[in-house]
């Protein structure tokens, strides 16, 4: 039973990753999905990301104003989220600074904000420990 479940986890992991990768990285979609519906779901995810990052880090829209939307969409196009929204907001700010997409006063405020959020978005020791424990347990059986 645990072997069966482990095998089911691996099959499901492959199927879910293929779908999510198609949605957020633009890899070829797995067979059998309606392309129009994949496009709708892709737009829903992107709109949510745009909205939640703005809500999570209102400083960004405060600093960037009307440029927030186009700059974020350009940033997000090639960069799927690997962590949560807070990390995404911080990575977006770093990306803007690295690529010199903003300059002058907005760049100065963005630098300050990115430095202030650095500490709060880095995984703490408890998080790193539980992640390690969870990984080491994945070979064990389920009930």
């Amino acid at each position, binding site marked *: 039973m645990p072997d*069966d*479940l482990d095998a*089911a*986890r*691996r*099959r*499901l*992991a*492959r*199927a*879910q*990753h293929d*779908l*999510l*990768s198609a*949605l*957020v*990285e633009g890899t070829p979609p797995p*067979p*059998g*999905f*309606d392309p129009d*519906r*994949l496009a*709708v*779901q892709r737009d*829903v*995810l992107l709109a*949510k*990301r745009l*909205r*939640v990052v703005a809500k999570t880090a209102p400083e960004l829209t405060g600093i960037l104003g009307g440029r927030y939307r186009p700059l974020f969409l350009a940033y997000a196009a090639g960069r*799927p*989220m*690997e*962590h*949560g*929204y807070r990390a*995404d907001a911080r990575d977006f700010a770093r990306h803007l600074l690295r690529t010199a997409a903003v300059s002058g006063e907005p760049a100065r405020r963005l630098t300050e904000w990115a430095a202030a959020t650095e500490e709060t978005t880095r995984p703490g020791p*408890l*998080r790193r420990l*539980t*992640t390690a*424990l*969870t*990984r080491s*347990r*994945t070979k064990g059986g*389920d*009930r």
Partner: protein
Amino acid sequence: MGGPGITEAPGTLGTGIGWRPEIADDIAELPGVDWVEVVAENLCPGHLPEPLRRLRTRGLPVVPHGVSLGLGGAERPDLARLAALADLAEALGSPLVSEHIAFVRSGGGLLPSHRLEAGHLLPVPRTRDALDVLCANVRLAQEALPVPLALENIAGYLSWPDEEFTEGAFLAELVERTGVRLLVDVANLHTNHVNRGEDPARALDELPVEAIAYVHVAGGHERDGVWHDTHAHPVGPPVLEVLADLCSRVTPPGVLLERDDDFPSADGLAAELDAVRAVTARTACRAG
């Protein structure tokens, strides 16, 4: 493997509303709000917002609603996330907690591929494999949580090919095998009707209505043949009709209005709650 049966009912909740910081003042003044639900990931047990603490002092039940566990994902649930949800339920003295039947991330762990976060709820394929994994994950979550868990059906924008279960049959087997309770979102049933051609009445026929812990109601809108479950529009007749159908079958212990954006005035929120109550009261009279 024998089913453990449905866990003990957490009691009657009544009519509630999703607590959001933007409408905290309005919620405190709204008449007839029996309980609230909070987005679990937005709160820290040691730093609960003052308006929410005042509601607790008044005796209003507060139910944490998680969005990031991804219990329908291939991986085991993250222990730190489960511990955070458990801590919040303890801090709020919650009668139950809720989450979703969804996957929210992939890669890493079981796969030699990088990790991806969806940032949103994605549908689980209704297959035997996915059901087995979901049941195992739900049991791990139930062990880690101090109160009963209720799981919500999500809004679908796409369908997996080669599914082996209808939504109702999938939920029925999930409840049978884990004893988990259900949070039935009638707006999501409507969404799946428009987007996936799935009849809400059939889902309600097949799912175990006695396992319902509470019901979500929310507004959305249709664009180009796709229903968008926005939580930013008033609740319309199609969603209230699904609520009426549900209430004609069972009296749900709780019904909760979700509003996340484009917040109306306090009067607007009160009118939304009245519309929900009108349906639950009407169907209760008919049943009685």
